[in-house]
């Protein structure tokens, strides 16, 4: 692959449009705009206690995680996530004080940055759809509309359910067109209440499972909640799955570095530890609570533990309201950001058209029950996909100056597409995908036939790929960058 040199100042209208979109954020944040701990604590606590927490706890129960694996695995995975924010993401953000867009632009060149934006837009639409789906599982209950049960074979919801998803999706898209500042504020107001709703709902149904005091908790957790036995034909998850998932589910944000955009406002890199409030309230307490709710719901003889159903079961109307708000307040900014990213490729379209286009994709996604049933897989794929770019930023900022390589090489040499970054990104992702797919994609298993013993001995789940992919992408990027810079 050859380097593409920028021929003229106006070499690409696509790149110019993207630059113009992020023009406001081109300069590093000024000192008088920096924020203290409180801002980051509130932001993380608000963003990570969301509608999808009602999905992920039950997924762990359905995959037969044992109590020890769940509690210890989540502890380790969440600590790794916090350390990733604090030791990888925040120090880079505080050093450069640039958004992820400009950081990638300097290192990888504008073409890869456009590709990143496009892929990210698709993923954001998908996630917004999952959140709409979560909200509709609650709204459907007062109308007596059954929620789709993927485990029982529902591949699409009923028409009335899809109609509700359409209404909710249109409302969310309309609000996203109007901007999301007020909704972002509203979601912060919801945060303290939402944390308590999760806790209260989980605690209230513990008695249904036979607990008579807190001393019973571990026995009940081991024997009736996290039993270690998968439900409904799901695969068995071990402690490694839990650690990997707790760490990987926000990999794009921490080791993938997209949260440099947030932490560039931090006074000190140590404020990266504020992420602990999001992890341990949202991805620890809330997942435990929703897992308890799921187990108690199933123990009562009900089936289909959808977010709306289990929230109603544990907290009544307050639970239903929390699911609607949690889905809505997180879907809205997600869709807004997706619209921003898509706008790059649709130059003559008005913002409202772009946002409604993203909204249409979001509504279609919301009507596919498999998305929530496989939400952990989807999050795993996109985490692995975007993570190498964060590794390149880390290497470029911290390692290149120490080994005599030039940082921000693409920007300094007017390179539109950094081939070391492109090759290292795709190679590390597809190599990892191959090791996962050889046992999990039937077409690939069949194509490979009899695997050699060394290959057959590698049984790697998506969740186990984080560290190997990071190391591989770093080694490839350093090696290829060395070749690139020696040539010149």
């Amino acid at each position, binding site marked *: 692959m050859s380097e593409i040199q920028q021929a003229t100042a106006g070499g690409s209208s696509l790149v110019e449009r993207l630059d113009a979109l992020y023009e406001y954020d081109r300069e590093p944040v000024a000192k008088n705009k920096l924020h203290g701990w409180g*801002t980051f604590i509130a932001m993380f606590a608000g963003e990570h206690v969301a509608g999808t927490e009602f999905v992920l706890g039950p997924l762990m129960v359905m995959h037969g995680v044992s109590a020890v694996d769940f509690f210890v695995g989540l502890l380790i995975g969440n600590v790794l996530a916090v350390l990733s924010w604090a030791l990888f993401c925040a120090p880079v953000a505080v050093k450069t004080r640039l958004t992820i867009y400009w950081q990638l632009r300097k290192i990888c060149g504008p073409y890869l940055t456009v590709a990143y934006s496009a892929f990210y837009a698709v993923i954001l639409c998908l996630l917004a759809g999952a959140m709409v789906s979560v909200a509709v599982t609650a709204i459907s209950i007062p109308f007596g509309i059954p929620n789709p049960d993927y485990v029982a074979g529902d591949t699409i919801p009923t028409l009335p359910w899809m109609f509700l998803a359409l209404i909710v999706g249109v409302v969310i898209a309309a609000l996203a067109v109007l901007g999301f500042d007020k909704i*972002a504020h509203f979601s*912060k107001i919801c945060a303290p209440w939402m944390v*308590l709703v999760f806790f209260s709902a989980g*605690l209230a149904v513990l008695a249904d499972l036979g607990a008579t005091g807190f001393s019973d908790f571990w026995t009940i957790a081991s024997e009736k909640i996290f039993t270690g036995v998968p439900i409904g034909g799901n695969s068995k998850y071990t402690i490694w799955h839990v650690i990997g998932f707790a760490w990987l589910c926000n990999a794009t944000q921490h080791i993938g570095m997209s949260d440099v955009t*947030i932490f560039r406002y931090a006074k000190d890199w140590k404020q990266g530890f504020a992420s602990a409030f999001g992890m341990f309230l949202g991805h620890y307490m809330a997942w435990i609570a929703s897992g308890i709710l799921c187990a108690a719901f199933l123990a009562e003889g009900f089936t289909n533990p959808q977010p709306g159903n289990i929230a109603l079961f544990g907290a*009544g109307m*307050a639970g239903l309201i929390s699911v609607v708000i949690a889905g809505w307040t997180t879907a809205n900014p997600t869709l807004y950001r997706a619209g921003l990213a898509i706008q790059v490729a649709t130059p003559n379209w008005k913002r409202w058209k772009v946002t409604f286009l993203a909204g249409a994709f979001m509504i279609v996604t919301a009507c596919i029950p498999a998305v929530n049933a496989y939400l952990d897989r989807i999050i795993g794929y996109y985490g692995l996909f975007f993570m190498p770019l964060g590794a390149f930023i880390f290497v470029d900022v911290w390692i290149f100056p120490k080994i005599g390589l030039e940082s921000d090489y693409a920007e300094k040499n007017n390179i539109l597409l950094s081939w070391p970054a492109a090759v290292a990104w795709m190679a590390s992702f597809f190599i990892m995908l191959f090791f996962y797919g050889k046992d999990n994609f039937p077409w690939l298993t069949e194509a490979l036939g009899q695997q050699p013993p060394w290959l057959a001995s590698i049984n790697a789940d998506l969740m186990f790929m984080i560290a190997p992919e990071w190391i591989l992408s770093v080694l490839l990027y350093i090696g290829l960058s060395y070749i690139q810079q020696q040539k010149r």
Partner: protein
Amino acid sequence: MKTLLKILSLIGLVLTLLPSFLVFYDVIDMATHFNLMGVGVILWFGSAPFWMKGPSLE
């Protein structure tokens, strides 16, 4: 006025949290727990937006 709103918000949060302990220790039933949490929702959202400022990075 702001103090009153803050007190109402606090009561809303207490009504969201406390009933679950009372259910757990079999002092109240689930229906009462649901109703008290519902009152908590009304108190919280009826008061918090008027005094609580959301931090913003813009």
